[in-house]
């Protein structure tokens, strides 16, 4: 009947390592709507509602990460007790011991799974010994939930919050499915108080949730995935086969792709959480509108940058505070190398992080002279200056992403060499003709990014005034549109380097 092979149906609901459950999939949408129905039915009984949410979260993680679910559960149990023990003692040295224990457990697992092979390779490369690489699979989301848990432990240590009495609440905080795979890295101090509030949504919140999910899907699947498959990947896979102008467009395209991919996923997470009655922290705030690198880091992956600011940069800065500017610079460079390393165990990420540390250091040194210069020529509020600053900041960021994206260091240099020495601006026309949809998407993507942010609020307002059925139709249309683009054939390779 209907050509459905029912014997395959049960398998659909089991973990498949080759097809982990992600927000973009139709199975997820189906499961999520089922959850929303249950969630509404039990909306009056907080206990049942939270239990439903925890069960769903565990199932979601199982579908995405298989039996690493057990590690996640262990993380929740142990960190709950570390927090409890830290809160129960008034003796500073005991508190510190529990902190070390918690750091050892959390960072130990993270380092083991994420960085073991990097360090083994390093030892081999510098001939300190020869060791076999380990056969390790990275538990999905471990970088995110480890940092989530650590914020709880560190905030208790810094007296910024009391440990929660409720294991159930803490367990939900750690396992909460919307942000478990890719953030935002929410803080316990903001999340825990929301759990026991009764569940009710205003029209505005529903509209905002739907809007975030729709925008997220469009950004992630229509823009990021499309320009990646059809253009960016091709150039970065063999930069020397393309002219400089194409390499440059691929670098800009990648900046857009990375933003749309990551912020799109965050938007979906925040939107889903909102429909479940939870406000997660903002993760992206129009990052390419930044007027300086430090401004960029207040707008890009905010939940990570603020985490590192609070728990890494500030303590380092206080330790080095008597060194003057050198103290700040040391703290900045160490913090940003860690930012790079957090993204992955590779030299390319380290270089990328180091580059941003250096950008920040130069920015700090230029701050005084710049202020004097702007004041002298009365430029502080100049629009032209603002535009120039945005342009320079964007190019510095895009440049750093070459190292982030390139398959290896040599290929990153190839991209730069092509741009500098083989630019061939005339090829631009051929690019627009050959890759019209890609070109249009890149232009539209940047255009939307630079529109005033109030426009999104206005659209959300309009959406909130609409009838629920109209909202459902719009939502379905967007999903249909997204799936059309998703299933579209790859654009053929129209031209090679001339």
């Amino acid at each position, binding site marked *: 009947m209907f050509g459905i092979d029912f014997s395959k149906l049960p398998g659909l609901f089991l973990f498949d390592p080759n097809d982990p459950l992600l927000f973009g999939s139709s199975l997820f949408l189906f499961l999520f709507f089922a959850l929303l129905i249950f969630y509404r039915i039990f909306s009056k009984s907080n206990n049942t509602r939270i239990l439903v949410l925890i069960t769903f979260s565990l199932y979601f993680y199982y579908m995405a990460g298989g039996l690493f679910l057990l590690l996640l559960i262990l993380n929740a149990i142990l960190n709950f007790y570390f927090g409890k023990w830290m809160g129960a003692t008034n003796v500073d040295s005991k508190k510190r011991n529990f902190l070390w224990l918690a750091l050892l457990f959390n960072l130990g697992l993270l380092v083991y799974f994420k960085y073991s092979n990097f360090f083994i390779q390093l030892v081999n490369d510098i001939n300190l010994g020869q060791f076999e690489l380990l056969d390790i699979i990275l538990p999905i989301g471990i970088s995110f939930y480890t940092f989530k848990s650590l914020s709880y432990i560190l905030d208790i240590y*810094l007296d910024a919050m009391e440990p929660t009495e409720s294991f159930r609440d803490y367990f939900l905080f750690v396992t909460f499915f919307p942000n478990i795979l890719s953030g935002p890295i929410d803080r316990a101090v903001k999340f825990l108080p929301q759990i026991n509030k009764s569940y009710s949504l205003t029209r505005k919140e529903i509209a905002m949730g739907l809007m975030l999910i729709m925008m997220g899907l469009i950004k992630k699947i229509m823009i990021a995935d499309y320009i990646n498959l059809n253009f960016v990947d091709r150039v970065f896979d063999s930069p020397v086969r393309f002219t400089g102008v194409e390499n440059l467009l691929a670098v800009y395209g990648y900046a857009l792709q990375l933003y749309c991919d990551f912020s799109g996923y965050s938007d979906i997470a925040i939107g889903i959480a909102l429909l479940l009655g939870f406000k997660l922290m903002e993760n992206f705030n129009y990052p390419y509108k930044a007027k300086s690198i430090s401004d960029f880091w207040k707008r890009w992956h905010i939940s990570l940058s603020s985490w590192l*600011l609070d728990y890494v*940069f*500030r*303590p380092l*800065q*206080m*330790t080095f*505070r*008597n060194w003057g500017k050198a103290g700040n610079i040391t703290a900045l460079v160490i913090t940003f190398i860690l930012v790079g390393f957090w993204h992955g165990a590779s030299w390319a990420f380290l270089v990328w992080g180091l580059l941003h540390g250096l950008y920040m250091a130069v920015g700090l040194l230029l701050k005084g002279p710049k202020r004097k210069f702007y004041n002298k020529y009365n430029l502080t509020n100049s629009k032209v200056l603002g535009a120039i600053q945005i342009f320079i900041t964007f190019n510095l960021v895009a440049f750093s992403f070459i190292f982030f994206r390139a398959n290896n260091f040599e290929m990153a240099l190839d991209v730069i060499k092509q741009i500098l020495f083989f630019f061939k601006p005339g090829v631009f026309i051929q690019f627009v003709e050959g890759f019209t949809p890609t070109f249009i998407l890149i232009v539209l993507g940047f255009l939307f990014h630079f529109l005033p942010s109030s426009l999104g609020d206005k659209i959300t307002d309009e959406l909130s005034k609409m009838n629920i059925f109209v909202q459902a139709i719009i939502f379905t249309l967007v999903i249909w549109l997204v799936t059309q683009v998703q299933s579209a054939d790859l654009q053929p390779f129209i031209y090679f380097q001339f």
Partner: protein
Amino acid sequence: MISDRLKKIICNELYLDPSSIEINDETQAPEVPGWDSLNHANIIVAIEKDYGVRFKGLEILKCNNVGALQNLVDSKVSD
């Protein structure tokens, strides 16, 4: 209550006119113009110098507003 002395040190570091700025117990760093995460260290060092005291790193990290900073200074001065 924030003492005039503490307020003066903060304003000096940030090139602010103390009479034009309101700082009370509840004030948090980002609410004061120019008090960002980078020059936070300069302000702390200036306070330490002016009062001739030395804070522990953890003590400063625990301060979540100017009132807490004032209490920390007071506790050091009265020692």
